[in-house]
């Protein structure tokens, strides 16, 4: 299909095409680069900015009991036994570990290390005053977990003009579990009016602005063991910003996630956008794939936007990481759910009336969240008979069926692990093709 009627120009070709720039697509591109594959990555990087930047592996199992998972590895093993169709069950624990570790190493060498706890999952404060269970947190959040474990007296800071983030709300919500929280409201350096987290983070990358913040914080530190701020401690220089604040204040300083889209998501986007091309991935960020088809030679042919100057890309194999409804990998009308690029079969509840529960917070989780693309052991989308639709098409991330990342708290882990599995299979396919 050629939307505009114009001839696609400027043909490109590659061995592996990665479609999508969410966590799954980014992780897939990283793994492909590590394998030395000739890779093009296409996608709009808006969605990853919405991710919280926390790396969940598994936080709840079983969902119906709302049972928190302390050790994600033990939890994943249980999950794979209880839900043999869950995408995690396509992988063994060691592979999942390797995938996650590879990503964490990448963050580390990129100057944005993440912290994990020896005991397994950690707990992070949220803006509504709950504690969220997650596996790895940006280093900027580490001291928060430390302070929580000790119930240390903490100063919680918010800023005049930052909507949806109230230190009072957080302290009030956690009071029964962590009474030693003291909220304080400050004026952000640079003045009043409405604040945006992205601007604040970029501002704090500058030492002079940090100094003003330090001056504003000083009068409130008496008796405090740590200081918690909304997640705005720099966009690119988080380590420098945090170290600087800590040494000036003489106290551990930590970030608390804000509403989405937050800085912790944007940092991931910036980091991947900068580092992946340097590793050999050819990026076509801010491009959308308009159409995909199988070409005569068995490869894949893609048409990509902009619509007024469409381009064609030839690839030997592809990994589909286009996400769900928010990411636009899946689309629904009143009659049913479809996969948007290849028209792949989508496993789904029998009719729309059974997509969602009447209660948003129903403990079972909504059946539609488990709809998606079914894959074989090699992460190739399959048809109703379980046969791969294409031998050279692989899928990863939240588009996969039989998981509920929102309720199971496994979004990033699932994206990373399945991306690893899909790229490994794609690499094997390409190797065979060329041997």
């Amino acid at each position, binding site marked *: 299909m050629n939307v505009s009627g114009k001839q696609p120009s400027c043909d490109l070709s590659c061995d592996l095409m990665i479609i999508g720039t969410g966590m799954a697509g980014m992780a897939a591109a990283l793994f492909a680069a590590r394998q030395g594959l000739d890779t093009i990555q296409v996608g709009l990087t808006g969605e990853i900015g*919405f991710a*919280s930047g*926390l790396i969940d592996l598994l936080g*709840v199992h079983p969902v119906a009991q*709302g049972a*928190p998972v302390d050790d994600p590895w033990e939890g994943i093993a249980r999950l794979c036994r209880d839900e043999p169709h869950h995408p995690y069950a396509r992988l063994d624990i060691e592979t999942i570990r390797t995938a996650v570790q590879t990503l964490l190493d990448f963050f580390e060498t990129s100057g944005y290390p993440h912290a994990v706890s020896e005991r397994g999952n950690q707990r992070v404060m*949220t*803006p*509504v*005053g*709950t*504690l*969220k*269970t997650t596996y790895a947190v940006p280093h900027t959040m580490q001291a928060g977990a430390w302070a929580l474990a000790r119930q240390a007296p903490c100063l919680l800071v918010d800023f005049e*003009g930052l*909507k*949806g*983030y*109230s230190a*009072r*709300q957080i302290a*009030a*919500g956690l*009071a*029964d579990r962590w009474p030693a929280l003291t909220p304080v*409201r400050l004026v952000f350096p640079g003045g*009043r*009016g*409405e604040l945006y987290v992205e601007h604040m983070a970029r501002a704090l990358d500058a030492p002079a602005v940090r100094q003003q913040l330090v001056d504003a914080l000083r009068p409130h530190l008496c008796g405090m063991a740590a200081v918690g701020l909304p997640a705005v401690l720099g966009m690119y220089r988080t380590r420098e910003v945090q170290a600087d604040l800590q040494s000036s204040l003489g106290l551990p300083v930590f970030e608390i*996630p804000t*509403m*989405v889209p937050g800085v912790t998501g944007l940092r991931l986007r910036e980091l991947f956008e900068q580092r992946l091309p340097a590793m050999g991935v050819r990026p076509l960020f801010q491009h959308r794939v308009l159409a995909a088809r199988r070409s005569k030679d068995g490869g894949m042919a893609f048409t990509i936007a902009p619509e007024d100057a469409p381009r064609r890309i030839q690839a030997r194999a592809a990994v589909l990481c286009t996400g*769900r*409804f*928010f990411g*636009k990998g899946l*689309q*629904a*009308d*009143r009659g049913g759910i479809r996969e948007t690029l290849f028209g792949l079969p989508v496993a789904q509840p029998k*009719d*729309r*009336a059974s*997509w*969602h*529960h*009447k*209660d*948003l*917070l*129903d*403990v079972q989780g*909504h059946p*539609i*969240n488990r709809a998606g693309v079914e894959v074989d052991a090699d992460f190739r989308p399959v048809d109703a008979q379980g046969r791969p639709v294409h031998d050279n098409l692989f899928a990863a991330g939240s588009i996969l069926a039989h998981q509920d*990342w*929102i*309720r199971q*708290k496994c*979004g990033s882990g699932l994206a990373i692990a399945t991306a690893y599995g899909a790229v490994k299979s794609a690499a094997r396919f390409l190797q065979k093709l060329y041997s």
Partner: protein
Amino acid sequence: MQTQVLIIGAGVTGTGLARDLALRGLSVVVVEKRDVNAGASGGNHGLLHSGARYIASDPAAAAECHIENQRLKQLAPHCIENTGGLFVAVAGDDERYVADFPEMCRRCNIPVRQVDPKEAREMEPTLSDSLIAAYLVDDATVDPFKLSLDNMADARRHGAILRRHSRVTGFQMAQGRICRTAILDEVTGKSETIDADVVVNAAGAWAGVVAGLAGATIEMRYSKGSLLVTQSRLCERVVNRLRMPTDGDILVPGGTVSILGTTSVRVDSPDVIYPEVQEVDAIIDQGAAMIPQLAVTRYIRAYCGVRPLIGADDPQTSEDDDDRAVSRGFALIDHTREPGAPSNLITISGGKLTTYRLMAEKTADLVCSRLGVTAGCRTGVAALPDTVEARWTEPGLAPNVWLRQKAPDDMLLCECEMVSQSVVDEIVAGLQALDGRPHLKAIGLRSRIGKGPCQGTFCSQRLAAYLYDQGHLQGTDGLAQLRVFLRERWRGQQPLLWDMNLAQAELLEAMHCGLFGLELEKSP
């Protein structure tokens, strides 16, 4: 507490009655188990009927509608948008009904003017090109929230008292009369009693339940109707299908949106009702025959209400499950003559939003005759004052004011509908004047917050954070209220989740459950 009249239910009937009685100088207390317009008055189509819809099924009610329609346009113009209305028939509709329509209207004193289908399509370009007939009528739209809130505000100015979250749980009898009414505060769990000379049961679809508490019986059945809100306004006028009333045959404009409805589904109880997926599909498929765009437009919310149908079950109507044939006229019941029922209980139920004032007048007349009060009704001549308390429900008003007086630190809490902090401050002050308990859901009811395309994803938490900062929320209130607010919004989204709405819902759940873990909290 002591009062002359206790009114149970703060829908449009109860609040309208409170105003009527207060204007006559009586002391009045209104108790409402949830909030103003929590019942059918908050779940209706907002159509100020010309009466033409009922010419065949209920000519008396049709004539009544038209008289009240004209009167309210005079007395409460700020609650009404005088849009005018069209009745249209499309190819395949019953041509006999079409032919008889003008004469039936005339018999009910309802003015109509025939227009050429081509002319009708020039007036309303979204109309189907298979139109075969069109008539102009006096339909208009009414904001039911503004109407009830303004009635209550004026009643309070004349001494009436409103108790929200106060449920009537029982009556104490003495000498065949209700001497004491037991009230449960749904928020604090505290009980109290109110002594009244006359008790008026204006509990709408719950009137049967309330009467039952006093040992009186009302034969009552329940008919649920569901409605869909479109993202943008598709028509300037009210558009009705020119045929016997059925599903999906009216499109009512409301500020910046249009509302498509309705259905008629028998339910066993007026509690815990939901708009259902099957109803949504039926409404859209029917509506699209008049206005094809309804098949593809984005819907932002669905809601429903229950019509009380009073009187014994008629086997003929119940068989095909269509309750539209049952009269929509109102029932004013004096329980005096009913054996075993208290002599000072009056029930007013049924009817329409359009005729609420008339219903209140008739009820107040009866109350006064029982109390020996001679003061006459004034609501037929005294204009309804426009109050601040009800101002912010109007779509488009908050943005206008915000744009006009934009102060740099008056930030928007709801960006879809442009509701700012100062608007919330005003609403909170109004709530505090009532009983001092600002609540996310109560603020939602009194503003456009949560009613735009984000369906509460962002504004819910912005509002909660703001209320903490202002000292209105403490402890884990905010968590509990966020859960309540989002669940309430969800009821209206759940049957509409496809396409963009589904993507939005996924984002909402990703943030509120994936990140905040709201589903794991133990509070209500």
